[in-house]
């Protein structure tokens, strides 16, 4: 609401007319829309084709491929963007090799096409996983019925399977649309050097001016950004609620794999090239850069060193503080979110009514709001206007994280609470246990895996968060994301890469541990 407000009148559109009288602001909104639409389309294509190949053809190594194509989901987009920049930037490795061989650069990543490409590489996993799941869980007899009455496998795919997974594909597309519009890290690293601005980066620049006018413009742009992202998500909800059919999975056998025959090597090579480019090369270029003594030294063993890692972990006070900050923020937020989210989840599932519906909506709405806009809102609310000033403290970051990720806990725990039949609790009461004791002795122990997984689901993205913290950090509250971004901006590529590599290693190890804990020994 603050965007309709100025000093002399209470309700006005002046802020909007002021904001949109500047062409660069209009261009950033148009860029955001273009970027989101193109990225959504491109990543839908990539995600769906990969899903189909891995779910339904007979190419070898399917379970390994499935894990590998999901890896980009674990990589923070801004770190991935750095990896791509080291490959296809002005002095990127591949461009340099190409220039050496053919006399010109292969591809300039700092372009709109580069932006779409890199963004797609980090947002396609949701499409992949929804389509993959739909394809694998599809009742095999629906396809078999098609074949038995005379249709060839490819015809069955086209006229039966594709229409059946189409709702999943569209849902993935709209989700990716919202994610792309909200992304900050990739446009900041790939787009800004080429002066390509989107709403998130524009808002960041206005906030960085620190003036009243900058703030009011940032607010106006945030409203536009929210409208774009929410629009995509609401359209998705509408389509999901409208869709007439769900794919019922019966007892059924797994759907038959398509025999690719003579195309098998070709398809396999295609998928592996994709995996090498999308997953391995960016990480490899990041790791390579982190070992370099200085950018541009000749490719010799003597040019490499582990000093950058040593500096990040033990010497540089900025990186050391950032590590400590991020861990503290993430631990506190994850704990907050899990407690608060569990309460919301428990009450909304157990007591249906207006109050719990409102609670559920309040808890899930911030998740749909782009992080950049959420951070702007946090500044408005918590910088003293309403009595409490959290600005420049760690608490404003933690509150923002909590709002942003509360949804994760609510969803995870609500799913688990629904699994617990009320009779389990009633049985506790019937043998003479008081309600609180039932909660402690029965409900919480059964929910434990869900609580742990919700904690981990919040910890993972918060400890390497960039979008929110870059707007909310103060002199003593720099996070890992902010610090890596700062090093990268300042041209300290080796330090930035070393720090990013450490973050990736921590993320992978944590993911591995969590998977082990949660899926290794699972309660029924």
């Amino acid at each position, binding site marked *: 609401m603050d965007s309709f407000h100025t000093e002399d009148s209470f309700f006005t559109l002046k802020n909007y007319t002021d904001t949109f009288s500047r062409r660069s602001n209009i261009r950033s909104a148009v860029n955001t829309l273009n970027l989101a639409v193109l990225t959504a389309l491109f990543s839908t294509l990539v995600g769906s084709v990969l899903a189909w190949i891995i779910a339904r053809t007979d190419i070898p190594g399917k379970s390994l491929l499935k894990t590998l194509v999901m890896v980009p989901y674990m990589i923070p987009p801004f770190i991935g963007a750095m990896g791509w920049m080291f490959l296809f930037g002005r002095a990127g490795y591949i461009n340099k090799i190409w220039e050496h061989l053919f006399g010109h650069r292969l591809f300039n990543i700092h372009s709109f096409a580069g932006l779409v490409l890199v963004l797609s590489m980090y947002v396609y996993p949701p499409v992949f996983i929804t389509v993959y799941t739909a394809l694998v869980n599809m*009742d095999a*007899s*629906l396809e*078999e*019925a*098609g*074949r*038995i*009455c*005379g*249709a*060839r*496998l490819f*015809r069955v795919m086209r*006229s*039966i399977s594709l*229409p*059946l997974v189409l709702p999943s594909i569209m849902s993935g597309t709209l989700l990716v649309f919202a994610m792309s519009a909200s992304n900050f890290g990739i446009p900041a690293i790939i787009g800004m050097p080429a002066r390509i601005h989107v709403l998130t980066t524009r808002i960041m620049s206005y906030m960085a001016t620190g003036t009243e006018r900058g703030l009011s413009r940032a607010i106006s742009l945030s409203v536009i950004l929210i409208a774009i992202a929410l629009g995509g998500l609401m359209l998705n909800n509408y389509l999901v609620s409208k869709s*007439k*059919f*769900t*794919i*019922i999975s*019966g*007892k*059924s056998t797994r759907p*038959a794999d398509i025999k690719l025959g003579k195309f098998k090597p070709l398809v396999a090579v295609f998928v592996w090239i994709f995996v090498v480019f999308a997953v391995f090369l960016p990480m490899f270029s990041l790791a390579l850069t982190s070992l370099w003594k200085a950018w541009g030294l000749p490719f010799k063993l003597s040019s490499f060193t582990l000093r950058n890692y040593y500096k990040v972990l033990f010497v540089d006070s900025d990186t050391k503080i950032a590590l400590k900050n991020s861990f503290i923020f993430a631990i506190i937020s994850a704990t907050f979110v899990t407690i608060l989210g569990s309460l919301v989840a428990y009450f909304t599932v157990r007591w249906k009514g207006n109050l719990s519906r409102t609670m559920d909506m309040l808890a899930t709405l911030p998740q749909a709001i782009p992080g950049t806009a959420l951070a702007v809102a946090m500044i408005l609310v918590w910088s003293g206007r309403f009595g409490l000033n959290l600005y420049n403290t760690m608490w404003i970051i933690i509150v923002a994280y909590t709002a942003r990720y509360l949804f994760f806990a609510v969803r995870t725990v609500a799913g688990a609470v629904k699994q617990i039949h009320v009779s389990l609790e009633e049985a506790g009461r019937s043998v003479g246990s008081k309600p609180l004791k039932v909660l402690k002795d029965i409900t919480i122990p059964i929910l434990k895996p869900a609580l742990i997984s919700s904690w981990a689901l919040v910890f993972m993205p918060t400890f390497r968060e960039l979008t929110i913290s870059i707007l909310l950090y103060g002199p003593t509250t720099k996070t890992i994301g902010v610090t890596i971004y700062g090093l990268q901006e300042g041209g300290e590529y080796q330090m930035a890469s070393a720090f990013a590599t450490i973050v990736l290693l921590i993320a992978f190890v944590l993911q591995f541990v969590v998977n082990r804990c949660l899926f290794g020994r699972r309660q029924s």
Partner: protein
Amino acid sequence: MACIRLENVEKYFGSNHVIKNLSLDIRDGEFITFLGPSGCGKTTTLRMIAGFENPTSGEIFIGNKPVFSHKKGLNTPPEDRNIGMVFQNYAVWPHMNVFNNIAYPLKIRKIPKDEIKRKVDRIIEIVKLKGLERRYPYQLSGGQQQRVAFARALVYSPSILLLDEPLSNLDAKLREEMRFEIKDIQKKLGITVVYVTHDQAEAMVMSDRIVVMKDGVIQQIGDPLEIYNHPKNRFVADFIGISNFLKGKIVGDEAGGKMRVKLYELEDAPEMEVDVPHPLKLKDKEVTVVVRPEDILIGAETGGRIGGKIFKRTFLGGIMNYIIVSKETKLRVEAPKHQILEEGDRIKFVIKRAVVVED
């Protein structure tokens, strides 16, 4: 219309031997049922006829044309076998309405539009779905969805119809009705039907012949009466209907499919003539004898001379069910509902018919 022949079919799933050297001739226009407990290989056999599973070795012929041959490396894909199939969960496509579901096989065969309309209308009439053409599957009941599945499987006049437990998801009343309707449709169209079920009552009502299977091996093939009256072995007798198993000692040589046996587990160790419908492999003088509950009559007026006692009585609606004890052997007996005896009553009974089975 076509006959089906399976020759020395073997099927392994990994190291799991699920079909063991199965050979079978199914006649043109016959209604044949694969009956057996779950895991006996009946569905696998059906899916091999359809072409969804490939035998590890052996040959399959439809209408005397080979559709699968391990030796010749021949394997006709399902869509070219001209088969109709109804799936257990119906597999009605949720994104097509009733008309389009049924018309799909005709569209694939590139049949002109007006003819499609005519054929679909006719089959809709047969399966009694008139007026529901524009409905989507989610607007149909389970029974209606099943009729759509039937219509879709029949509309292109396939040479054989495969039914994979099509009634198991319906409620009891509807299931009963559908048995007769399926049989009716089959007679009307004269189509060869292969039916898979674990429900013996379904098999009895509909089949021309029943194939009883266990652990991937055919136990017995025969018409329902034969299977019931002359089960070949203990498994078939136990699986089809209710059986009392008694041990007997052979006291006379076999002649004309009959043999004299002493039932030494009963009071007074009575001797009687029992049926020997199948050739027997005898190791010693011991045999297993099957007595159906309705073949035991209670009361002196029925000529009963074997002594026993009423152990338990249960009323089942149409009949009275007794468990009687004779020299520590318990027997199940079905008696008319007006014959009321109290638990503990001493009785005399007679065994009207008994048959020898392999163990």
